[in-house]
């Protein structure tokens, strides 16, 4: 009898502890700046579900991608993963993530999202991801520097970009640049270098990879557009000397005043607001169009709380808070963003896109990351190669060799 009483007491204790601890829901993100957003949604969610404990983990993108690659096959990933559609493609194709519930699939296929985002979150007829935000590029330029240089607005054509880069470059007494007129992504690993090159290539109507009529994929830059884009980089670095790898560039350089203009995604707006709120800057559309990379939320198991949390994340008030405070662009099209654009005019170039502005994205094919990473490594070497100045044969040879490698990777992945 005593034993029975003891067992009952222990059982009660375990039960009470479980209730006190509640259920746990975990969310992982590869964008550290998104932590504030998820925390806000979590606060809202736990107000209605006080027994739920929410764990949010964010880390730099590349480390994060490695983490989920290892965690998913061993069933140790978080309940909700935030992943770009191109990276998620392999995970979905590998059967590592289930499709969304029927209700959520119906919602995603409804009016809330543009077909572009629905397609990028789908595979084989099912929707696997909930479109959350997108990375989309535009030009950032320093208004004061433009006025000092006598320029009354952003460049409109690629020829003007070249002229502006020269006009805006500041130099020391020996002629070395102390401020780049146009900061280009010249170094770094990963696929970022190739992605930035792709944006310039896009202005010349080229693409890093192209799908042929028979459905296979081939390198799309071994042509005149590729040569034009590469010549741009090579000339600006080696011939016109308006930019070099040592000069601080990108968002950091823009905030420090060591570059007058650069192309980046909308998160820079939130970054500037928190670090250099008095920076006089504006944004502008690129001449032809820009990159848009959808980032979706995926559920890794059948935890019903995960689907409920995603519904909270998609609430209009959180979506508006996301763009206003973090800077990433929400994908819901059934929300009125006018008040946000009025309070942050720099968002105009990101949220009000003309119909003729051509958006492109990184295709959700398995080998795309390897294609970009390998090509990026070649580009980094080519950008600082002075031998390629006024050397169309050299540029052509470089592109041909790189394209051969790209096609080999695509072929090995069964995409040719």
């Amino acid at each position, binding site marked *: 009898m005593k034993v029975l009483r003891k067992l009952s007491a222990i059982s009660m204790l375990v039960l009470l502890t479980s209730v006190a601890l509640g259920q746990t829901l975990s969310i992982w993100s590869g964008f550290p700046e998104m932590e504030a957003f998820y925390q806000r949604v979590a606060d809202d969610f736990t107000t209605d579900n006080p027994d739920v404990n929410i764990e949010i983990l964010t880390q730099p993108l590349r480390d994060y991608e490695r983490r989920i690659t290892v965690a*998913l096959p061993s069933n140790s990933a978080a309940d909700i993963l935030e992943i770009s559609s191109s990276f998620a493609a392999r995970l979905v194709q590998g059967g590592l993530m289930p499709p969304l519930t029927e209700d959520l699939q119906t919602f995603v296929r409804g009016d809330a999202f543009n077909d572009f985002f629905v397609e990028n979150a789908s595979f084989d007829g099912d929707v696997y991801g909930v479109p959350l935000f997108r990375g989309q590029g535009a030009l950032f330029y320093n208004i004061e520097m433009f006025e000092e240089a006598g320029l009354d607005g952003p460049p409109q054509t690629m020829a003007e970009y070249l002229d502006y880069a020269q006009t805006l470059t500041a130099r020391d007494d020996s002629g070395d640049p102390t401020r780049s007129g146009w900061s280009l992504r010249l170094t770094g690993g990963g696929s970022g270098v190739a992605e930035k090159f792709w944006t310039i290539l896009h202005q010349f109507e080229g693409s890093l990879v192209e799908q042929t009529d028979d459905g296979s994929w081939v390198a799309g830059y071994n042509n005149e557009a590729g040569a034009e884009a590469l010549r741009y980089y090579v000339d600006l670095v080696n011939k016109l000397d308006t930019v070099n*790898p040592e000069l601080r560039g990108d968002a950091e350089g823009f905030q420090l005043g060591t570059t007058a203009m650069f192309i980046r995604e909308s998160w820079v707006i939130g970054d500037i607001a928190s670090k250099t709120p008095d920076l006089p800057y504006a944004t502008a559309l690129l001449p032809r169009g820009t990159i848009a990379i959808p980032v979706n939320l995926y559920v890794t198991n059948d935890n019903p709380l995960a689907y409920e949390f995603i519904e909270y994340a998609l609430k209009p008030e959180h979506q508006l808070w996301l763009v206003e405070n973090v800077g990433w662009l929400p994908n819901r099209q059934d929300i009125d963003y006018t008040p946000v654009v009025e309070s942050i005019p720099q968002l105009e170039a990101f949220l009000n896109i003309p119909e003729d502005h051509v958006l492109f994205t990184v295709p959700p094919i398995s080998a795309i990351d390897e294609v970009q990473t390998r090509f990026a490594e070649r580009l980094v070497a080519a950008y600082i190669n002075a031998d390629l100045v006024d050397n169309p044969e050299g540029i052509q040879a470089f592109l041909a060799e790189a394209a051969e490698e790209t096609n080999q990777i695509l072929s090995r992945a069964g995409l040719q």
Partner: protein
Amino acid sequence: MFRWSISRRRWLFAYATLAPVVAIYLYIRILPIGQTFLMSFRNWDLISVNKPFIGFENYLELLRDVTFLRSLRNTTVIAFGIVFLSVPLSLLVAVLLATPRKLNPFYETAYFLPVVTSMVPATLAWKWILDANEGPMNQFVGWFGVEPQAWLINPRLALFSVILLSSWKILGYNMIIFLVGIRNIPQDLYAAATIDGAGSWQRFRYVTLPLLRPILLFVSVITVIQSYNVYTQVYVLASDAQGAPGYVVRVLVYDIIENGFRFFRMGYASAEAMMLLVIVMTLTLIQFVTLRDRA
């Protein structure tokens, strides 16, 4: 009645004591190497179910892969650079500190401090030192009339920077090993050499150095093995905003991680790992043969 001899019981006790350690070692060190070896013959995609046997295809592709070959070249330059810079320097410091002096404990601590410092914060400090715009390294070389250099961007200088940092980090460890070796050399030998008219260089050349050969072998082997596995300092030193080192200092371990966990090509990454194992083991054997015979 059968009775075990004392000697046999001692042997049995020794084997029984060692068995758990050997079993754990086999399980966590040898077995994974064996599995990696087997994986290297398959098209082992991390996330797909089918992992077909492809024979030596991964190894043949390695020989054509310019990225792998560049990584191998960079790693070799770094490894031998570290050995050639750190081993003589640490020996020199050890010889200088071998003579008892009042400030020796201070210097020993100062030289050993980098060894106990975590690699990441130490590398971050070096990243600032080597910064092209604000780093003190450019101020230092400027005193000798050298123009400011892009230490972490220029491919050759970036390799040199990794060698410099790694040598600084390992110098204290090697110094302590040499110091122990030097202090164990009988003083009678030095006294006899002095009576025979040997100066300090001759005492070092004909007494210290020959007796230190086993230590020199150990230090060289350990330094080569550690240097071929260079990764953290390269990752931190040459990382860009996205946390990935560019092509300038791509090393083997980074290439293995990228192929395995970024491109999901575990079979190919395993082949790279096996190549690294073979290289390190070959170099170790060469060092053993050349230095042990003379020791």
